[in-house]
């Protein structure tokens, strides 16, 4: 039933439907022909269904070990566990492009299904823009990276998957990250539709913001999941390497964060309209170039480009059309958008503008650092690399003022504000921050980590203060405060929680700069001392696995004589691919991670010694916990829609989308 040919046909059908979806509603909206405009939702739902069938066919081929499909033969094997047969579908280029298209199709269908209260013309145009982009990528998928291509003769067994990728963290990381990337296509489509209409108003800001917040939640979770994966799989104790693939996800996150803040100004004050439209275009453009330029390695190596010129040229052409076209439309139409309301520099709007400027400065730095090496090697033939020292030295000084302003920004009134009364309300946060500085200066080495600890505490306490001030906690009876809290819009809580999440992440990052590690080569029975813990190597055994043999160590960790944990780090040798992987053992108590890695065996068989790498990582889990808290804040602010907009039909489904994060 679900044959590869059906999948291929469904993909071609989706491409045709997407092309129709990209053209017909635009014509309808231009002629104000309601019947043609009403085609848009049906086409979007149809395209989404066709893509879902196509994707199901590819999964079916992978699960049933149909090695006559080239993609399955190259990336799967009979012995692979079922979970990785399914998730392996998006672990390669062709499958991930199809997943990308599917998520874009789902976005279009979501606008069609949940956008019923949008004006018909605006909805038709938004769906048309999504359809046009989808048609381009489905054509790319069909012509240059066909996931359903057959091989003849079909091999008996597939080539298998890199053991490093056979991990649950990596299995679910791409769909979440892609949903974040692709989700920003909806604000992009809204921006293009608004440019075509020549109208941006407060209602537009209200419509676009939930989509941007939902995409932002997914992107935040996706980045955190990727970072967590590299922490526990790669075995280096590192969590962020500033490599181009990671930066490609960070750049749209930075502009996306700026977007969800500037859209507030559009919604509440009809200000920053042109800028918000530009940010929506920029965020999706960065998502696109991030996924397709950096991930496919086109910019990183001219070599990869030469390997498959058709693919590279198609992608470059597609990016040029989407990004160049939207920027040209922006340049043509933006001057016709009217300027917004006035505001003083010290006001909520002013704080949000400052947030945007700082986020965009950080983004500019990351873009430059990411693009500089490939351009140097392309233009001047010099091989250089830009790593952690560069990004630390440039991003942290820009981020620190952002964190300081984050503390009191949400407490400033709109239009015109006085700084002093706001700062007075933050006296408790200021005192606690001063204490945090003192403690950090005593226990933490390095100027930037001390400053980061201080501002992290500042953000968290200021966010809590914002809520307690609003509900007048301890200044009126508790029942009254409770009543006030219930009347408060949920987005206020969303903001405070998301900001506190940033504080938690920053605290984790600052503490991680104090991580300690030790590399030793010892015989069995030795005890090592690290960070107040005694780590004893008890034994090392050989253990067979399904398709590998493992060398498993047993390390007992004691603190002042009391047993803390027994760790079992191991090293696996995969028989088929002549590859070894390192399985890290992590013990966490949420305040710190104990992290053990087993290295090579040395010495004679009679008196073997083993290389061990032991890490003590303070507050490491907080880095990802903070990201989760940020996403929870985003979801909470999404669930607020029904109260504020008074459009229950639309608010409910969107909160459900966010709720899946």
């Amino acid at each position, binding site marked *: 039933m679900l044959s590869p040919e059906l999948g291929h046909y469904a993909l071609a059908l989706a491409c045709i439907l997407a092309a129709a979806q990209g053209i017909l509603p635009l014509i309808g909206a231009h002629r104000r022909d309601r019947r043609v405009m009403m085609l848009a939702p049906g086409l979007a739902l149809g395209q989404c269904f066709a893509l879902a069938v196509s994707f199901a066919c590819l999964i079916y081929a992978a699960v049933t070990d149909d090695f006559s499909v080239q993609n399955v033969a190259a990336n799967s094997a009979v012995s692979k566990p079922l979970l990785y047969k399914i998730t392996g579908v998006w672990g390669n280029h062709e499958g991930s492009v199809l997943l990308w298209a599917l998520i874009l199709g789902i976005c279009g269908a979501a606008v069609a299904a949940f956008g019923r209260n949008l004006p018909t013309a605006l909805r038709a145009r938004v769906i048309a823009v999504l359809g046009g982009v989808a048609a381009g990528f489905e054509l790319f998928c069909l012509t240059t990276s066909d996931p359903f291509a057959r091989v003849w003769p079909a091999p008996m067994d597939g080539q298998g998957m890199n053991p490093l990728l056979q991990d649950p963290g990596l299995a679910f990381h791409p769909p979440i990250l892609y949903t974040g990337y692709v989700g920003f296509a909806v604000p992009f489509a809204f921006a293009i539709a608004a440019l075509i209409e020549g109208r941006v108003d407060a209602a537009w800001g209200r419509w676009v913001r939930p989509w941007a917040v939902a995409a932002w939640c997914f992107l935040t979770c996706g980045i955190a999941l990727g970072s967590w994966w590299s922490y526990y799989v790669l075995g280096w104790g590192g969590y962020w390497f500033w490599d181009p693939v990671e930066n490609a996800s960070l750049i749209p996150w930075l502009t996306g964060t700026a977007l969800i803040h500037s859209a507030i100004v559009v919604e509440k004050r009809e200000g920053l309209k042109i800028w918000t439209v530009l940010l929506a275009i920029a965020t999706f453009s960065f998502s696109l170039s991030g996924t397709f330029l950096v991930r496919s390695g086109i910019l*990183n*190596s001219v*070599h990869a480009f*030469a390997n498959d010129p058709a693919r590279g040229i198609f992608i470059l052409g597609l990016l040029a059309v989407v990004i160049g076209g939207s920027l040209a439309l922006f340049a043509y139409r933006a001057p016709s958008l009217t*300027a917004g309301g*006035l*505001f*003083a*520099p010290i006001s909520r709007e*002013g704080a949000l*503008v*400052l947030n945007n*400027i*700082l986020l965009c*400065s*950080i983004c*500019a*730095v990351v873009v*430059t*650092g990411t693009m*500089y090496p490939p351009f140097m*090697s392309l233009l001047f033939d*010099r*091989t*250089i*690399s*830009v*790593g952690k*020292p*560069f990004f630390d*030295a*440039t991003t942290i*000084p*820009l981020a620190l003022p952002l964190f300081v302003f984050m503390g009191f920004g949400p407490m400033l009134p709109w239009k*015109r504000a006085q700084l002093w009364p706001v700062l007075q309300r933050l006296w408790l946060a200021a005192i606690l921050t001063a204490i945090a500085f003192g403690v950090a200066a005593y226990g933490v080495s390095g100027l930037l980590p001390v400053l980061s600890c201080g501002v992290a505490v500042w953000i968290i306490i200021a966010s809590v203060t914002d809520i307690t001030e609003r509900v007048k906690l301890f200044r009126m009876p508790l029942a009254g405060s409770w009543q006030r809290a219930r009347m408060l819009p949920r987005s206020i809580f969303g903001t405070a929680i998301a900001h506190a999440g940033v504080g938690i992440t920053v605290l984790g990052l600052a503490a991680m700069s104090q991580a300690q590690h030790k*590399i*030793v*080569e*010892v015989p069995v029975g*030795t005890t*090592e001392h690290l960070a107040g813990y005694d780590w004893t190597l008890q034994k090392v055994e050989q253990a067979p696995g399904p398709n590998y043999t493992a060398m498993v160590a047993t390390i007992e960790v004691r603190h002042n004589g009391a047993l803390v944990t027994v760790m079992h780090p191991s090293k696996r040798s995969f028989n088929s691919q002549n*590859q*070894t*992987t*390192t399985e890290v053992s992590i013990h966490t108590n949420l305040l710190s991670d104990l992290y053990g*890695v087993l*290295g*090579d065996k*040395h010495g004679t068989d009679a008196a073997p*010694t083993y*290389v061990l*790498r032991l890490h003590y990582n303070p507050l490491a889990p907080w880095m990802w916990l903070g990201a989760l808290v940020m996403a929870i804040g985003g979801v909470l602010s999404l669930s607020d829609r029904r109260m504020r907009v008074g459009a229950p039909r639309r608010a409910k489904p969107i909160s459900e989308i966010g709720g899946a994060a």
Partner: protein
Amino acid sequence: MTRKTRRLWLVIACVACLGAAAALMLKAFSSDIVFFVTPSQVVSKPPPADRTVRLGGMVVAGSVKREKNGETPIARFEVTDGQAAVTVRYEGILPDLFREGQSVVAVGTMRPDGFSASEVLAKHDETYMPKEVAEALKKSGKWDPRFGPPPSAESWNTMTVQDAKKNAPAAPATPP
């Protein structure tokens, strides 16, 4: 507050932030950029001792020596680009993909007694060669991708530029 003063504030804030970003970047570009060097470059013109560089080449077969300083494991090996060899000293666990006779990138500083690596990378693509090493090979005239796969690691350590030219006689030295 008029539109004009408001715009002035905006411009000042933008210029200040982007100016700070540019200044930070220029400063970091002058001190924190890591250059890729080949062993022959290191031998002919050693980088200053406080400058971190990425040294790339092939691990000379049979040159890997492991020793212990107390309990700290130390690995010493030679990295060559076919013209010169540099001894690398590394404290720590060599990566899973590290093998003699194959390519490697060592990140660290040049000391009087050899190269002291803080990190050793052995990330391979399908030809078992990091991109940078492949580029360096092509530049030194050791390998021209138009004439087949890269030379095998064994021949590599002893091969001279003349040998490479003999293998690929009519090739102009420009990359494709």
